[in-house]
């Protein structure tokens, strides 16, 4: 059972109430606009935003809480964590500020407090702390939506069912009858229904994101690490030993030959271990 949020852009009226609620619950305060602030409205002080598209269409932007999040997979210290309930949460007390999560996220969600000399990563946590403490029953954004355009569902399966039901009820309305986030990058906890193509929300100018979870590639490589380490060590030690042994044998033969021929051993006696300079 993992939490999910279903956002239906055909219902969204762009009132920004989700953003206000998010700011209030997460105590984000007023936003100062710095030169590096992105057009999409997310920043170190905003976890969600409402994108304005053409023709009064609005898309609410927030962390997708991937089922296999790239950000959590790459964090070297595990400051980002995929909770069993579904949200991907952040532990600022562990973070060392490498910003690898920002590089790995296919949707460009984690943002940084660039203005601070003690900066932290900032991103939506589905109000995980407040909900688990029982202060609120569901994330602030979904609770605030007057149009039920973005709804909180306690299980992802139920959210998918609801989405399918909506598609079935209004054939032809939704773009390719597609549930955005059902399969992409292994599936996400935040699902979108839309009457327009939402592909622009991820960086996929050259290739589509695909359905394989992002961490799969690195995991495949990381799995070879112990083997490589042992393999290289053994190979190197073995090579050293073999060459050493051959040199010793050669030196011995030469000495023998020298003894029988009565001539001096030729150049290149076996070097001492460690190659004394």
């Amino acid at each position, binding site marked *: 059972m993992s939490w999910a949020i279903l956002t239906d852009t055909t219902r969204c*009226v*762009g*009132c920004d109430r989700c953003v206000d609620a998010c700011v209030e619950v997460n105590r984000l305060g007023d936003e*100062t606009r*710095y030169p*590096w*602030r*992105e057009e999409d409205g*997310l*920043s170190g002080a905003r976890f969600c935003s409402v994108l304005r598209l053409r023709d*009064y269409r609005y898309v609410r932007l927030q962390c997708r809480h991937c089922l296999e999040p*790239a950000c959590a*997979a*790459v964090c*070297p*210290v*595990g400051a980002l964590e995929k909770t069993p309930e579904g949200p991907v949460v952040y532990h600022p007390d562990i*973070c*060392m*500020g*490498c*910003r*690898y999560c*920002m*590089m790995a996220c296919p949707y*460009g969600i984690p943002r*940084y407090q*660039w*203005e*601070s*000399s*003690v900066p*932290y990563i900032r991103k939506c946590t589905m109000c995980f702390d407040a909900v688990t403490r029982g202060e609120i029953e569901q994330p602030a954004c979904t609770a605030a939506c*007057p*149009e039920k355009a973005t709804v909180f569902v306690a299980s992802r399966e139920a959210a998918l069912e609801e989405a399918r039901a909506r598609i079935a009820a209004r054939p032809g309305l939704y773009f390719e009858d597609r549930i955005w986030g059902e399969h992409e990058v292994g599936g996400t906890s935040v699902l979108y229904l839309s009457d327009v193509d939402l592909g622009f929300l*991820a*960086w996929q100018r*050259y290739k589509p994101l695909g359905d394989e979870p992002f*961490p799969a*590639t*690195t995991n495949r*490589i*990381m799995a070879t690490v112990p083997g*490589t*380490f042992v393999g*290289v*060590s053994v190979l*190197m*030690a073995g*090579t*050293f030993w073999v*060459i*050493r042994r051959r040199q010793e044998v050669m030196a011995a033969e030469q000495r023998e030959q020298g003894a029988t021929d009565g001539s001096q051993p030729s150049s*290149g006696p076996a*070097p001492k*271990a*460690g*190659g*004394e*300079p």
Partner: protein
Amino acid sequence: MRVRVVKALLWGLVGASLVALAARFATGLGATTNLNDVTPWGLWIGLKLAGVAFAAGGFTIAAVVYVFQLERYHILARRAVLIGLLGYTFFVVSLIVDLGIPWNIWRPVFFWNLHSPLFEVAWCVMLYLTVLLLEFAPVVLEKHRTVWVGFDLAYRTLKWLTIPLVVFGIALSVLHQSSLGTLFAIMPHRQHPLFYSPIVNVLFFVSCVAMGLGAVIVESHVAHFLYRRRLSDSLLQNLGRALSLVVWLFVAVRLADLTLRGDLRYLLEPSWNGVLFWLEMLPLLIVPSVFLQWRRVRTSRTLLATMAFAVVVGFMLNRVTVAGLAMISPTGTNYFPSGLELLISLGLVPGVAVLIWMFLVENYEVWEREAALDAEDASRAPLEPDPVSGVWLGDSTLDRFRQYSLVFVLAAALTFGLLPRDALFGATAVPAPVQRPRGREVLLVDGDRAGLAVTFKHQVHIDSLGKDSSCALCHHMVLPFDQDTPCWHCHRDMWSPSDIFDHDVHAAVLEDAGAGDPCAACHPAGEGKRADTTPLCAADGCHVGRRALVQTGSRVTLEEAERPRHAAGYMDAMHELCIACHRERAAELGRPRHGECATCHGAPSMEGS
């Protein structure tokens, strides 16, 4: 003389970059760099990757000398290990500069994420740096071993441990150099297909071996240039040949990978990425490696150095591309490194690193068993005192220190003077341009104070009523007391475009209810179909307490209006929001026009209708 000029330049760079560094830590990354949310890794990461590949000379030559026991190369061992040591030290130093919370750099020791390539990099760097220190320590200890018996003991122990250390170091390097590539295996979305590869770890490893070999050749020539060291020509020629073979291997793996993934078509694209690819591959990698196979090229010192340098630059470009340049078109970033980023990079790596290198090679036997070409460094030749003043010009060590510190202080002062304002006082916010007054795009309007609100599409109303000149239509209606604007002023005809009332549905529902003529339910016969003759929706028991009647898709929300039931009249709302504050500020600033509507709004829109 060469040494002194180079040192003075480097001290100047270090002075300048230390000021830049201080600013970076004092005011943060945003104020001093051009990094941003789309490009959180910038120039520093690219250079770090390039520099650490340079350091691969350490393990490559160590393998040749100690594992394969090619004794001839032994004279290169110490210098290679020193390159490695400096490369890795400055990898860590620049990491400290780059990290947002650098005092947490030790965290990977206790907090583990075995899936993270960066975690592996962190561990390998920690361990390999230790190994390199232990490998290089004998060079320092050997000079001081007579001072204290402990030094001697440490020296012997380390000598005895050489082989295990070398083997451990090689294994760590193989892992670490390749996992630096793995960092980018998770970024297919950020990199152009020409530069993304799921086997980028293999490419990084192969290229680091080439970089390491190239680094030793380049370093030998730099040492030759600065200190007139004898060049071990035959060894360097062999390294040059090996270098070209490794470059071929790299090119082969790279092209095979591109072919297998079917991305060869991008090669012919006349784009930024295609150009980058060809620039890196042809003049910087393939051409030099072909030339290096040619004996005549290898035996010419100038050509050998040039070719090795080209290959090193080629792989540095490759690293910088993978870490940044290849991300420009996929992410559309506008990142370009700031002056301070450049200055810090230059000051740390050519600056501090080369100065440490010069200190070590001057004071310790890094170039063992090699005789200087000239017994005396040219700069150490005794100088005549100036014939006019009788002053000695800079021969003594003290004099040199004085010159270096002068350059250092001047450069630091100059940089401080030229620091941008943000770097001194922290990032400044972008001033928000004054906009025409603009309401939210969607309002919740409870027009009849009944506790039920409709979503009022503000922007739609603005657009359909005449854009900029429309404000006054609602907000300044010339009505007694100019209070607010009941929707029915416009929506009195239920057939008008409006999504608050679906006429057909109402007619259908009433017909189904069997109330006879559905029109008559709302429009009493003979009284005309006008707003003032029609009952309100909540009257006559229709919508009172029978919310189920509200159809799905209707814009009548079922929630209690969350705003105060008695919203301020539009005029009051507007005037209290803007005018009160503006008048206050106008008085404070002593600028009366600040408080006048026309100052911001432009008169026409306020006087319309």
